């Protein structure tokens, strides 16, 4: 009998699996993928045999076998992992990422790998070698990126919960465009071991879920010190579900004036301002604050992140894994493999990154970018002496049409204007649904907090979500 168990939230799925086991959930999720993936293209690989594992014994673990889907840039031992790029086709990692191990230790079934922009370079999920992923709310629109497959799968009930990675907004922006909850944790809270590197001083793995409570459950399982990641924090990790009190009284929330500028979609501005008004009615203290260097964030990001990317992508040379395009000479192997293996956006970023790091230009571009990064950080440090949280839009517009920004890299880069600053400063930020445009597309509210204060984000986001219940609205797919 059809029970539609794929529609459950993670909390509900865990409760169901603890009583009856996870097989029914796995079965319904697999069916849902079978029915929707040809139109959404959220999954690049599903391995149905995985759910025969003996882990899903009811009540034996936190997750009791409930499935979690994984962005295709997080290594799973023995399973092809490609970053949705031709150069890594056929790459089978010899080890699993620490987050994969931690989720498995908590009893989760790792189930399916999700579409993304090639090497996480993009904000629309259009640069994937597997073809674009589409937005379940409107298949003509992009799901956002780069974790577009993760956001679309959760929105369309093709996944109970998913993980993605966020370097400049790659979890929060697609979460906003698909109407789900996306969390970028503080840099250092979740181990990056096994995450295929893009911008090493920005990258963080985080959850994409149906509710804020689900996000807290996921972070409980994912966070914590890892000796295999030298940038992993040693701070003790609290139980994040304890923060879900529905009480925001006395919380000081700042609205940065620089995030409410011309060029923003009026519907986005309206719903974000409505959200602030609602939180005020619930007892929060709403103030205006200033982050004066916001307008420089995208420029800083596209200097520093591409430099890190060009360095990280130097390892794809045809020697050890993935594609080798030529065996003629060593030079041919390097040049041909990289030329045929990387897509256009990857080449653009590698070339720009190589340029800003090259002799004679390093100081004017890369070092300048790092210095302005300091100014952006200081803006946040100052704001957080006055307020506990910052409230802003996640993205300046709702989902845009496929192809609309694909030919204009700079326009695409500017769609991350409100998410990039949190990566520059390393602070945690969450996107939670806060309304729908007249065209029926979701709008995301972004909350940013002090380093390692994810609990405060969850507290405010959960209170807002439970008051508004936007998460109950589902796409018609």
């Amino acid at each position, binding site marked *: 009998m059809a029970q539609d168990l794929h529609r459950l939230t993670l909390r509900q799925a865990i409760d169901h699996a603890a009583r009856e086991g996870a097989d029914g959930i796995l079965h319904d999720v697999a069916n849902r993928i079978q029915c929707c993936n040809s139109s959404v293209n959220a999954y690049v690989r599903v391995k149905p045999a995985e759910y025969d594992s003996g882990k899903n014994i009811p009540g034996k673990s936190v997750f009791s076998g409930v499935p979690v889907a994984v962005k295709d840039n997080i290594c799973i031992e023995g399973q092809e992992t490609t970053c949705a790029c031709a150069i890594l086709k056929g790459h089978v990692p*010899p080890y699993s990422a620490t987050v994969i191990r931690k989720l498995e230790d908590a009893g989760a079934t790792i189930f399916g790998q999700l579409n993304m922009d090639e090497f996480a370079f993009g904000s629309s999920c259009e640069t994937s070698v597997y073809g674009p992923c589409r937005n379940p709310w409107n298949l003509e629109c992009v799901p956002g990126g780069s974790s577009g497959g993760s956001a679309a799968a959760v929105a369309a009930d093709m996944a109970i919960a998913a993980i993605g990675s966020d370097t400049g907004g790659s979890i929060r922006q697609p979460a906003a465009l698909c109407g789900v909850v996306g969390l970028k944790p503080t840099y250092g809270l979740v181990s990056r071991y096994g995450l295929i590197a893009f911008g090493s001083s920005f990258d963080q793995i985080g959850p994409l879920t149906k509710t804020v409570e689900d996000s807290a459950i996921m972070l409980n399982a994912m966070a914590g010190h890892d000796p295999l990641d030298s*940038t992993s924090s040693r701070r003790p990790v609290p139980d994040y579900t304890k923060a879900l009190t529905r009480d925001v009284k006395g919380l000081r929330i700042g609205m940065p004036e620089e995030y409410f500028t011309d060029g923003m979609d009026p519907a986005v501005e309206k719903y974000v301002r409505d959200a602030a008004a609602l939180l005020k009615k619930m007892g929060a203290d709403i103030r205006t604050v200033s982050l004066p260097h916001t307008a*420089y964030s995208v420029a*800083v990001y596209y200097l520093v992140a591409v430099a890190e990317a060009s360095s990280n992508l130097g390892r794809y040379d045809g020697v050890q894994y993935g594609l*080798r395009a030529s065996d003629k*000479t060593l030079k041919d192997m390097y040049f041909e493999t990289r030329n045929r293996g990387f897509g256009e956006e990857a080449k*653009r970023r590698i070339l720009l990154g190589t340029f800003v790091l090259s002799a004679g230009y390093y100081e004017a571009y890369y070092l300048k970018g790092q210095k302005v990064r300091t100014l952006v950080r200081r803006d946040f440090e100052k704001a957080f002496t006055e307020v506990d949280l910052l409230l802003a839009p996640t993205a300046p517009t709702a989902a845009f049409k496929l192809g609309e920004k694909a030919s204009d890299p700079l326009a695409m880069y500017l769609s991350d204007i409100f998410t990039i600053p949190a990566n520059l400063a390393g602070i945690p930020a969450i996107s939670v649904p806060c309304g729908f445009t007249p065209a029926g597309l979701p709008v995301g509210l972004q909350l940013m907090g002090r380093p390692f204060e994810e609990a405060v984000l969850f507290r405010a986001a959960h209170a807002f979500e439970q008051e508004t219940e936007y998460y109950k609205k589902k796409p018609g797919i």
Partner: protein
Amino acid sequence: MDFDIHKVAELARLNLDPEEAQKIGKAIGSVLEYVRKLESLDTQNVPPTSHVLDLENVFRPDTDRDCGASEKALPFAPSREGDFFKVPKVVDKE
């Protein structure tokens, strides 16, 4: 700014075809134009941020562990010979 796409492509080990070189060169030119907005900021006495965490160097004992890498990685190598990755000839005779 003198962005020479052919020189940078050589450094980045990329063989671009002429059409691609022109298209990418143009896109990078507009990004480099955009980032010029940073020039208006005085950063003379600002230290650079290379990392957001106040972490010190992290050390661990240098002991060997069996990770099974050769059994797990070599089967998927583009080309192997025994326990080695095989690559085109690096050193010419004579």
